[in-house]
């Protein structure tokens, strides 16, 4: 067996050189661009072994294992060299096992080499904190990657029997996972990428043991099947079985019938209904610049929207200094749980169920139309800087739409909510210009109202024309692409002669004024959070006490200085000082919010970007014992640790106010109190 493995390893040498070359290139890049002795364990881990994980890295590992798997059997059979092996006095099973073991060994050695080098490099950092090394994490990652390679290798060996079509099958598997993630929220342990998800207890890495066990078992079964297929396949040089005349006929018949069936299926699918899906009760109406499609049931609201569409568009064009207004297609028949409206290039999609009032629908159209004008005026350049400009993209759309379609109460409510979040969670301009980082830390929806307020400060400082000027400046000929967010803002603002720091100063001043006027009774805090998994393990129960907060404590941490010891209850990690139970600061009577909600953080091992699931909460008890309980289905929390965000509506028509993200632990078994 050892001789066989050694022979296979010799045969895998070109693949080994290839992977070594990839490794060398990777390290060369690092050596050319970094002082390796300054690298910390955390920076080494970035993008791979921090909380959760990045599916992109897993894709690379899958490719590594699949390419190796494909180099094992197909060529041996195509070139007939398998016949020499079969002529040896060893069983076909031994040959198969030797090949699998040799390939796995090669992958493990490459892995070991990479991890070993990393360890050596990290050891060169002498710093007392930055130079700390985490053996448990390093070793766990090493063996988990080796096991993961084995699983994908097994898949690859089976797929390679189908040759290149096997890759199509694997693509189907990946697409199936993406569909499941979009439709069900998670593909659970069916996804091989879930095997690389990371959870930590302190500094210890916890692996997805259940998933690894399941997939290892499947991998063994897959290998068994692959063995059956490969051991019964004759080499092409050996001639294989010559097809009989009957087989040839059957083959031809199968191919002909197959194409015929596919053709009929296509004709049936495409047929005469093309372009008319879900269009039974849809009606079309058009204005000079808009084409609206809507359900006949919504005639009244649509008429109101259509009536104002052109004048609103002209007003928007005037604000943004647009010379030529585009033609826009609007789908008013969409239904979405996640957005009242969407816009891409010159198409708008709106859900008329998102708001009750007609005027709100009209404003949403103005908001989305602003996005269309942003795209056309900046020649799509604003979208190229999406992360840096998301708050402004949404904020400008809010600002212009509220300017054209005033909804004073809604806007005031949004501003109030934004100012409370801004104060409690200490949000700064630098947070706004990093869309992903913002969403990880705060409520991503705050981009709208905070952006609205920031745009207001910009108009206040540099004039209304600065909005359109900014759009055109992002798409100017000499604009430098891919600038870091802070520099993008400085560079573009300089191009329109508007000072960023002055705008920021105005913004902060206006935010403070807004916050000072807020009735804090409407913004209680969640405290005494209890997380339990029920006995059946089918759902997780989050229960939190609702506690009022004194206006003084919220506005100024110093208020607590005079208070005695008490609960430092805060609104998530972003909360300011705690409100004391027996402090001098006056308590306010809490206005119990209308609705409660919890948002569960997405899992980044997912292939398709989804939307974080939310679940409603119910109040229990009253007075000082008022608690809110949220029930979360088990599938939304794949492991024991998860991120969540508690929220509520401060008034009947207000948006949800969310506290900062927290991390929770749902114990595997329940001990009910």
């Amino acid at each position, binding site marked *: 067996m050892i001789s066989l493995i050694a022979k296979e390893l010799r045969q895998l040498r070109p693949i080994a050189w290839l992977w070594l070359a990839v490794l060398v290139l990777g390290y060369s890049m690092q050596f050319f*661009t970094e*002082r390796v002795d300054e690298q910390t364990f955390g920076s080494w881990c970035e993008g791979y072994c*921090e909380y959760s994980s990045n599916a992109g890295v897993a894709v690379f590992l899958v490719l590594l294992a699949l390419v190796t798997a494909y180099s094992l059997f197909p060529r041996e059979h195509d070139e007939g060299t398998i016949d020499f092996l079969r002529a040896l006095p060893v069983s076909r099973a031994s040959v198969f096992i030797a090949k699998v073991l040799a390939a796995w060994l090669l992958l493990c050695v490459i892995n070991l080499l990479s991890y070993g080098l990393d360890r050596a490099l990290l050891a060169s950092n002498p710093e*007392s904190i930055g130079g*700390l090394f985490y053996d448990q994490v390093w070793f766990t990652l090493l063996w988990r990657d080796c096991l993961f390679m084995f699983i994908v290798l097994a898949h690859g060996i089976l797929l390679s029997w189908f040759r290149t079509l096997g890759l199509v099958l694997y*693509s189907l598997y990946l697409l199936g996972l993406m569909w499941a993630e979009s*439709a069900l929220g998670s593909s659970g342990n069916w996804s091989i990428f879930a095997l690389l998800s990371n959870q930590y*207890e302190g500094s210890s890495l916890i692996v997805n043991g259940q998933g690894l066990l399941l997939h290892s078992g499947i991998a063994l079964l897959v290998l068994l099947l692959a063995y059956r297929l490969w051991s019964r396949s004759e080499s092409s040089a050996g001639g294989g079985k010559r097809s009989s005349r009957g087989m040839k006929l059957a083959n031809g018949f199968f191919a002909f019938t197959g194409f015929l069936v596919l053709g009929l299926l296509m004709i049936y699918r495409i047929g005469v209904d093309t372009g008319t899906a879900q269009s039974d009760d849809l009606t079309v109406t058009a204005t000079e610049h808009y084409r609206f499609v809507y359900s006949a049931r919504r005639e009244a609201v649509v008429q109101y929207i259509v009536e104002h569409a052109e004048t609103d568009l002209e007003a928007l064009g005037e604000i943004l200094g647009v010379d030529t207004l585009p033609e826009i297609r609007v*789908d008013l028949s969409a239904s979405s749980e996640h957005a009242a409206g969407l816009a891409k290039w010159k198409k708008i999609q709106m859900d008329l169920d998102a708001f009750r009032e007609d005027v709100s629908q009209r404003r949403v159209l103005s908001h989305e139309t602003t996005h269309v004008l942003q795209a056309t005026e900046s020649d799509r350049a604003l979208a190229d800087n999406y992360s840096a400009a998301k708050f402004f993209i949404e904020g400008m759309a809010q600002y212009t739409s509220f300017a054209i379609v005033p909804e004073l109460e809604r806007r005031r409510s949004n501003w109030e909510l934004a100012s409370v979040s801004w104060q409690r969670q200490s949000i700064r301009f630098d947070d706004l210009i990093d869309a992903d980082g913002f969403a990880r830390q705060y409520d991503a929806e705050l981009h709208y109202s905070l952006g609205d307020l920031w745009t207001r400060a910009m108009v206040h400082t540099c004039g209304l024309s600065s909005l359109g000027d900014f759009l055109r400046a992002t798409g100017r000929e000499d604009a430098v692409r891919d600038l870091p967010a802070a520099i993008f803002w400085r560079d573009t603002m300089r191009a329109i002669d508007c000072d960023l720091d002055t705008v920021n100063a105005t913004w902060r001043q206006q935010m403070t004024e807004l916050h000072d006027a807020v009735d804090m009774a409407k913004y209680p805090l969640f405290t005494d959070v209890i997380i339990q998994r029920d006995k059946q393990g089918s759902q997780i129960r989050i229960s939190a006490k609702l506690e009022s907060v004194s206006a003084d404590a919220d506005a100024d941490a110093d208020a607590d200085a005079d208070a005695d010891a008490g609960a430092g209850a805060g609104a998530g990690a972003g909360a300011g000082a705690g409100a004391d139970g027996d402090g001098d600061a006056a308590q306010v009577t809490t206005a119990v919010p209308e609705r409660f909600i919890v948002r569960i953080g997405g899992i980044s091992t997912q292939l*398709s970007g989804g939307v974080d699931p939310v679940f409603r909460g119910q109040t229990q008890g009253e007075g000082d014992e008022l608690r809110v309980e949220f029930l979360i289905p088990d599938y939304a929390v794949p492991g024991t640790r998860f991120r969540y965000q508690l929220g509520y509506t401060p008034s009947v028509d207000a948006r949800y106010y969310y506290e900062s993200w927290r991390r929770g632990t749902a114990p595997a078994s329940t001990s009910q109190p």
Partner: protein
Amino acid sequence: MVVSSLLGKDIREHRLAALLLTAGTIAMTLLMLAWNRQAPYSMSPFEIVRFALLSFLPLIALITGNRLIVREYLSGTRQFVEALPMGRNLPLLLKYLTGLVYLAALAIMMVALAAQQAGVTDDVTRDYVLLIMLKTLVMTTLYWSVVFCFSLCGHLRIALYLVGAALVALVAWYPGIDPDRVPPFALMDDQLFVFERDLIPWQAMQGTLLMAGLFTLAGFLLSRIGEGSVVERLAKPMTRRDYVALGVLAASGLTVWSTLLEQKTRPPVEFSSEYVVRLQDPAVSVLYLEDAHQAAGQAMAERISESMTILQASLGLAALPDVKLVLDPEREPHEIDYATADGVFITANWLPHDSYDDAILDSVILHGVLSAQTSGRAMFEPYHWVLDGFTRWWVEQGTSELRPEHRHELLARALWVLDVEPAAHQLIDRWQLTADRFSYSGAESLAWSAMDFLEETRGRETVLALASEFLVTPVADNLVGAFQDRRIIARQRVESVLDMSLDAFYRQWQDWLAVQRTDASVQQLLATIPALQGRLVSRSTAEGVQELEAWYEPRESALELLEDIDSAQGECILKHDYIGPFDMEIEVSDDYEDVARCRTGDAVHVLNSLYSSGDRVYIALDYDGPVFHQPLRLHAERMSIP
């Protein structure tokens, strides 16, 4: 007859694979459409056509090329075909057309399926579908032409595909290239491919077709050059020489890439406001926002400029980075934002500053200047104490006389730090731990005291020599830079400059500090620090609520600290923040804090439900009194919540 025979041969050979591939494509298209229906932000079924063109259509083209062309060349059956009396071009042309028609059929089928799912909301007109189909076919033609050409390159095709992929990545992600100006990228634009229905991208389509034509032509030429010898040569497996060539190609690509990245230069951004004081050589700009703050802005700019000019002359610095300061009147006096992405960029509020606060701000600015001078190497732990100590020393006594009140405060803080943690004297080996435990202000005062000691005992030149050793020479951002920098270890470098052993330096410096303790002003300051130490515990209540408690206990000290805690005039502050599973340097912000009156006995701070089991948290307990300008860190801990 010949044509039908050749076509018949290919159909017989590949019909089953073609059938399976077609079925797979249909299945994938249907799955994508189902996914598109569910996806929260999808706006048109035609989006899957673009997705398919970017993801699996190239794969299908690859499979088709592999079966139609590569297998025939590598297995040698091509020679039989070439032996037939029909010329060399016809079989190849038929191969090209067969592949193109097959891929075009798949592409049309995908567009048709998407159109079927599209509704009246997508306004599926004939012109719109034709436009999308046209764009799709143009891209399909390009893919097939590339695969056709590369497939005729035998085993070298893998290298060519890799180079091709690298080129695509370069165009897509290199900051200096605008993909919208490159035809296939412009055609596949994220927004325009599906949603632009009025304008036909003639230029992008023509450019893409031209590229496709060139690849096709190259393929045909390749099959003719050298009477088949090239093809024969290419059909053979790659030799070691090929591998070396590939390696050289990859290395060259890498070098070009790195060079291009290096050249990504751009003039630094400038303030555009009229409320700016601008000084040149060294370049210092101060944005003061309002007329009322102009005088303060002017004074600040002049002070920094003068300090930097003398520093440049004293250390012999060739150039200095641009320094920009922004006034933010709403900030706390010590709330300073610091960035070095584009010169040194500082946001702070210096309006309520006294001279000590000014010194703190000036130290931060010079910290950025000298850090930039060494490309950030001065922040490396073995040298960081020199950077911190020297910048403060320079600000305090580099260009003017040291103010006695500053000296007393810095000395008192340094003495207190060493009293709490005697091991903090190990400046080279424990700098990060000291800064972590006592905050940067505590660590800085310690380093400053070392510099003050050196100036007093060895003279000003020794301090400057120490700075020259560690803070002047830029260290390259690569392995060679790190290696060269560490040829001589930090300890030896310090000993060489000081001309004494490090242990002797540590000992003499501590003895000197002990003498400073007897100064009445220093003692007066020390007597205002409460003799407290902090304690932390994280626990779960009987109901399952996670709480983190902090309290204070008396601490014994030889420094004659304030033992009557009730008479302490300052506040006790708990600061906290999440940290990841791995330790890195952190300066906990004032954003998340709990302020209370200092006392001993029961719990002073309780954090309720903020953290849960398994989290890692940094907790600091500070004492902020009226005498010291910055808080004193009584306790700091990185804890895992049990």
